[in-house]
């Protein structure tokens, strides 16, 4: 019971944040609402017994990635987005398609899936076991992702580095 209540509460917060992300016109509000979504998702993970995932969700997503977003928003001083009408396709095809798809899926989920419940903390994922899995069964993906991250770092450095010709970097001090 408690579980259900908590689920509903955090789920509501989630959806609220997501919708807010849609309606907010200023990116920074969007970012914050996304942070809210992530926080409540972490709570959901806790409810599902995935404490470690929850923690990582908070640290990596909310604590690092979103900070990066906020940082960029501040850096570019992104203002309120103007409502240009660049693409009719998105509205004519995209939104209906999205609606149809999601409705269908929802219907299938409701109709097909039985009501077998997920217990609170049904599967405690102790970090020890996760680490074991990561370094045994999923070793290859793990290493590959590490390489991916390395590449991403280099790519970011290359991309964001100011071309010397356009603007000479001013001295910091």
């Amino acid at each position: 019971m408690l579980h259900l209540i908590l689920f509903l509460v955090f789920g509501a917060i989630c959806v609220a944040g997501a919708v807010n992300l849609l309606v907010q016109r200023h990116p920074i509000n969007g970012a914050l609402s996304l942070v809210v979504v992530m926080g409540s998702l972490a709570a959901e993970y806790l409810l599902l017994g995935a404490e470690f995932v929850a923690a990582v969700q908070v640290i990596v997503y909310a604590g690092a990635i979103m900070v990066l977003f906020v940082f960029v928003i501040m850096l570019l001083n992104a203002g309120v987005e103007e409502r240009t009408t660049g693409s009719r396709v998105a509205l004519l095809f995209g939104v209906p398609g999205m609606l149809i798809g999601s409705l269908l899926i929802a219907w299938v989920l409701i109709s097909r899936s039985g009501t077998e419940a997920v217990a609170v903390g049904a599967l405690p994922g102790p970090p020890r076991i996760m680490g074991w899995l990561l370094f045994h069964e999923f070793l290859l993906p793990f290493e590959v992702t590490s390489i991916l991250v390395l590449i991403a770092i280099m790519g970011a450095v290359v991309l964001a580095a100011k071309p010397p010709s356009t603007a000479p970097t001013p001295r910091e001090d």
Partner: protein
Amino acid sequence: MVPLSYYLVLSGILFACGVTGFLIKRNIISIFMSIELMLNGVNLSFVAFAAHWHALSGQIFVFFVMVVAAAEATVGLAIIIAVYRTRETLNVDQVNLLKL
């Protein structure tokens, strides 16, 4: 006790919100955040299934998703900065030179 389908519906809603955001947002950064939203929705279903089938691999996959998301965020934001530096706009409707 919460039925599995609830979690799935929730993740579906999040994903749909992400798609919608991608479709209706004009600001590149917002669009990017919508992508993150979709990823989160997927993650939720991953964890839910992991709890449902008592298989930890679902949670492992969440990690991989997160790592990929982090990489994507770094590169993507760098690209955004580069775009802004050259086009001086963040509106995707005005960044449309890549066409025939």
